[in-house]
């Protein structure tokens, strides 16, 4: 059993900010990571995701609350006694040791019999295709090979929890995709709890069983990739997950017979969501993903609005169409992902249609989701 439980965990540093108050990185963290689960901590820089991971590893002290690995309270347990293994962003291989020695080092310290060490290292090397490099030093390896050695070093220990701190960010795009699938396959094979930190939402979406979205040390949403994408709990999660990010437009809720209508940019989007009852006559923010906006003629919808194309970026299979709207809560240009066969160019005047079933509505003040 290697579930990880955070109960009101706080992380604060002794140094003080300009107001003379202690710097609190994680104010109150409550989270349950289940046994054998692949959980991804994701969020912008400085959101506390790496600190959270380092608290699990024991590399950062827990300032308050309780942190459990399995049934054991580990607040004051040394990193070596937590039965964890960690893969670092910078690989952190021992430069003076060979690949074999790097992988065997942890086992040697634990006085594992020599034959057992050899068996485990060779097995890990076989899985990670590192057999030809066992006698080499880290400086003689490529970035991808070094990362695999770091994974192997963690693997041979058979830890209860695998911690990975942005392990792919030093690799090029092609290798990153390759390693992504290798890590996912490794999780399937090892059947161990994986906690993975990244700021790359593609990595988070493709690898995680569940994703924890963090900002300013707080958890905003914990859910499956699909739910995060389709039912974000607030505007931050909606904008952080998905690339290009969700468009936000100011709208007004009006009563439309027994149902409601979201009015913006001269169009009325009908909705029968009961959650909108409290917002009649009030301003809300409508969220529309770029792929839910379509060029006129290629899609059937009663709702749409005319735009002036500020810029059109040809991406190959699709065109990113940038435009401006009147009600603009985040002040950013809006984007539509249109199939490239539509042939839209900069400075064109076109009409975009909305997929009314895929509109998200957010409270303008609290930024929380009202309905999807």
């Amino acid at each position, binding site marked *: 059993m290697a579930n990880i439980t955070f109960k009101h965990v706080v992380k604060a540093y002794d140094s003080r900010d300009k107001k003379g108050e202690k710097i609190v990185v994680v104010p109150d963290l409550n989270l349950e990571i289940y046994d054998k689960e692949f959980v991804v901590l994701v969020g912008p820089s400085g959101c506390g995701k790496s600190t959270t991971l380092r608290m699990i*590893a*024991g*590399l950062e002290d827990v300032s308050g609350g309780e942190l459990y690995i399995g049934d054991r309270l580990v607040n004051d347990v*040394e*990193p*070596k006694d937590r039965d*964890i*293994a*960690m893969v*670092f*962003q*910078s690989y*952190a*291989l*021992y*430069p*003076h040791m060979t690949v074999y020695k790097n992988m065997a*080092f*942890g086992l040697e*310290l*634990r006085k594992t019999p020599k034959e057992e060490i050899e068996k485990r290292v060779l097995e890990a090397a076989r899985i990670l295709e590192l057999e030809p490099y066992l006698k080499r030093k880290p400086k003689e390896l490529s970035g991808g090979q070094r990362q695999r050695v770091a994974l192997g*070093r963690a693997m041979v*220990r058979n830890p209860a929890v695998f911690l990975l701190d942005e392990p792919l960010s030093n690799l090029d795009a092609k290798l990153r995709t390759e390693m992504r699938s290798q890590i996912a396959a490794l999780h399937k094979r090892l059947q161990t709890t994986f906690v993975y930190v990244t700021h790359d939402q593609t990595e988070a979406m493709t690898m995680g069983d569940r994703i924890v979205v963090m900002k300013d040390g707080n958890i905003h949403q914990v859910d499956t990739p699909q739910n995060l994408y389709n039912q974000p709990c607030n505007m931050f999660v909606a904008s952080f997950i998905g690339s290009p990010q969700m468009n936000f437009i100011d709208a007004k809720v009006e009563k439309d017979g027994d149902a409601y209508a979201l009015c913006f940019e001269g169009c009325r989007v009908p909705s029968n969501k009961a959650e909108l009852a409290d917002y009649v006559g009030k301003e809300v923010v409508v969220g529309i993903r770029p792929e839910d906006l379509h060029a006129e003629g290629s899609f059937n919808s009663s709702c749409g609005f005319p735009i002036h194309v500020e810029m059109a970026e040809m991406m190959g299979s699709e065109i990113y169409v940038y435009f401006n709207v009147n009600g603009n809560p985040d002040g950013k240009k809006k984007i539509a992902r249109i199939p490239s066969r539509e042939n839209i160019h900069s400075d064109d005047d076109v009409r975009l249609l909305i997929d009314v079933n895929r509109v998200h509505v957010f409270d303008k003040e609290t930024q929380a989701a009202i309905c999807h």
Partner: protein
Amino acid sequence: MTKKKSIFDTILSIFLGILSLAWIYPVFMILFNSLKSEQHISTSSIFELPTVESFVGLDNYLNAINAKGFMTAFWYSLVITVSSLVLILICCSMCAWYITRVKSKLSNACYYLFVFSMVVPFQMLMFTLSATADRIGLSNPYNICIIYLGFGAGLAVFMFCGFMKSVPLEIEEAAMIDGCNPLQIFFLIVLPILKPTLISVGILETMWLWNDYLLPYLVLDRTKGYTTIPIFIQYFKGSYGKVEMGPMMASIMLTVLPIIIVYIFCQKYIIKGVVAGAVKG
């Protein structure tokens, strides 16, 4: 432009070549004279190469080695150099590790104190030091290493800190997770990574320790026969201005030789170690 540059390079090479010859000539001069007979060193020009008449082979070397006290002085020099060197390398690398990893006002203050100690001249404190050393029992070859640790620490800590800053903390954290305690992290991970700097600091300190004259001269209790090689060489200068030039030249050569050999074998590490902190940090 290229032609101008090549002319400049040639002039610079010639100038540096002459400078190097001027630098190395004294060493060769001692070597040549150590092979001449006593009489020829004092009567002929000291710049003259050995001739058939003046050449005496290794006689001067044998005389120097057989001189009373030479081997004892050699032993004491060796003891002082090795013990001080080991102490400086271990203590200063540990100290630099602490200063680099523990960010506090105390560690910062320590660092600046070490750097400051490099600019304090030995002459400023030599008399009080020799009196204190005598009082607390550091005036013998086996304890003098404590004093050398103090004088050598400035440069050593400065160089170790420079390199240590370029060593990623994650390596130590990985070792911690792998199961190392702090001592194991230092001796199994940090120290091997510091190898280039250890060698360069080692060579620089060895040259200083082996050749040092003033400190052992002031501190060591010579009434008990404690001398080092640089002090012993002076003994060839007898009373009434009589100097045994042959054995003196030979003993100078014997003193310089180990250092030159060490330097030749390890010089590439000196450059690596000195530059490492500066370019990676």
